[in-house]
């Protein structure tokens, strides 16, 4: 399993743009928002948390179709499916590799981008916490979407239509956590819900993803 993780990470880095592309996309979203809503600091600091979360969502979506597509084309997915480790574990490792290459850089870079959007100071901590807790769920759900569409020639647009509705609860609780944290309100409920959704997603969704891959390889 570790070998599989290292292989995926190496592939992502050597193929170019594994780490950088998602981050660059995130930066572009953050840069474009003030052009859209105007440069007033008051407005920006109010919507900053939402924009950062949306940026994370879209950046995550960007690289989803590559999770299984290349392995499917060159046949290595068939080998992985017949390998001694269960397909569920393979899927989980794929999701982890996706998170390390797109989710983790976003979590690390988010405070920098938050400066551009005038995020209120007390919200920084909660922004980090919410992204750290929430982005793994985005990767795991994205893997499910990628598993559903792996056999399709042009699955990209369909993939976003399938995956984005699944992101709604994570987005709501994640953005709400940052908002409440920034205003100094009680954060237990969104914090617990966000962590709970992520934990349940990691525990259960790989079974659905593996089932979808088995169907697609049939």
């Amino acid at each position, binding site marked *: 399993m570790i070998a599989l993780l290292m292989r995926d990470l190496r592939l992502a880095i050597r193929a170019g743009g594994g780490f950088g592309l998602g981050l660059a996309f995130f930066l572009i979203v953050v840069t474009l928002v003030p052009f859209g809503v105007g440069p007033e600091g008051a407005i920006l600091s109010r919507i900053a948390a939402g924009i950062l979360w949306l940026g994370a969502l879209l950046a995550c979506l960007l690289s989803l179709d590559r999770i299984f597509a290349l392995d499917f084309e060159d046949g290595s997915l068939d080998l992985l499916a017949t390998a001694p480790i269960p397909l569920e574990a393979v899927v989980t490792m794929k999701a982890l590799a996706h998170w390390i290459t797109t989710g983790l850089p976003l979590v690390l870079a988010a405070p920098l981008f938050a400066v551009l959007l005038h995020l209120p100071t007390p919200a920084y901590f909660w922004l980090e916490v919410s992204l750290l807790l929430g982005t793994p769920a985005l990767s795991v759900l994205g893997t499910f979407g990628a598993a559903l569409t792996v056999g399709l020639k042009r699955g990209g647009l369909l993939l976003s239509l399938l995956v984005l509705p699944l992101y*709604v609860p994570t987005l709501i609780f994640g953005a*709400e956590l940052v908002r409440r944290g920034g205003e100094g309100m009680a954060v237990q409920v969104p914090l617990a819900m966000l962590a709970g959704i992520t934990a349940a997603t990691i525990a259960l969704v790989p079974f*659905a993803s593996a089932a979808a891959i088995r169907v697609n390889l049939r």
Partner: protein
Amino acid sequence: MSIWEYANPVKFMKTSGFLLPWLVGLTVLTLVPGLVWGFFFTPLAAEFGATVKVIYVHVPAATFAINIWVMMLVTSLIWLIRRHHVSALAAKAAAPIGMVMTLIALITGAFWGQPMWGTWWEWDPRLTSFLILFLFYLGYMALWEAIENPDTAADLTGVLCLVGSVFALLSRYAAMFWNQGLHQGSTLSLDKEEHIADVFWQPLVLTIVGFGLLFVTLLLLRTRTEIRARRLSALEQRERMA
């Protein structure tokens, strides 16, 4: 005599063919009087005015928008567990009907909300979760369209339906947490004291029954079409092989 007999397409076609004309008749007999009664022979509610009439389309459509998804969940489970083709085709046939019901609920809701709340759209939890449900219907139908092999498509949409059900429910509660709503609470229930007055309630129940029969009629019709389409493609394939 068990319900699994209808997993046999021939048996299903025979029975549904026999039932369909009766269902069409019953639908007309409940829906038309229900709507006419509701639209023209109920008093105007004091605080709502004439806009209260929207209820006779809005509430039944909203009821079935949710229940059709539940039905799709059940038929998808039956397909995934027992591999009955009719079940998978019924789920496929139900999706567009559910999608239209959701759309009707959203649009009539906007017509009702405009004079009542002074806005066409509000990010109220109920409205929001219906919009999300609409997106789930769209995704489900798009996945059916995208995959060529019918068995693969049935499997994958079945899995999507299971995962989607969990997340649709989660979104509903997330939306309730996220924003307190304008939408009134539930007014129809069998056990609560609080109820809308009988004059409004009776035609409403009739229209709900009518919408239900309409759904069953359309569902049988569409499932029959799907079965015939499947037979046609099988025949074409045989032709090409020969």
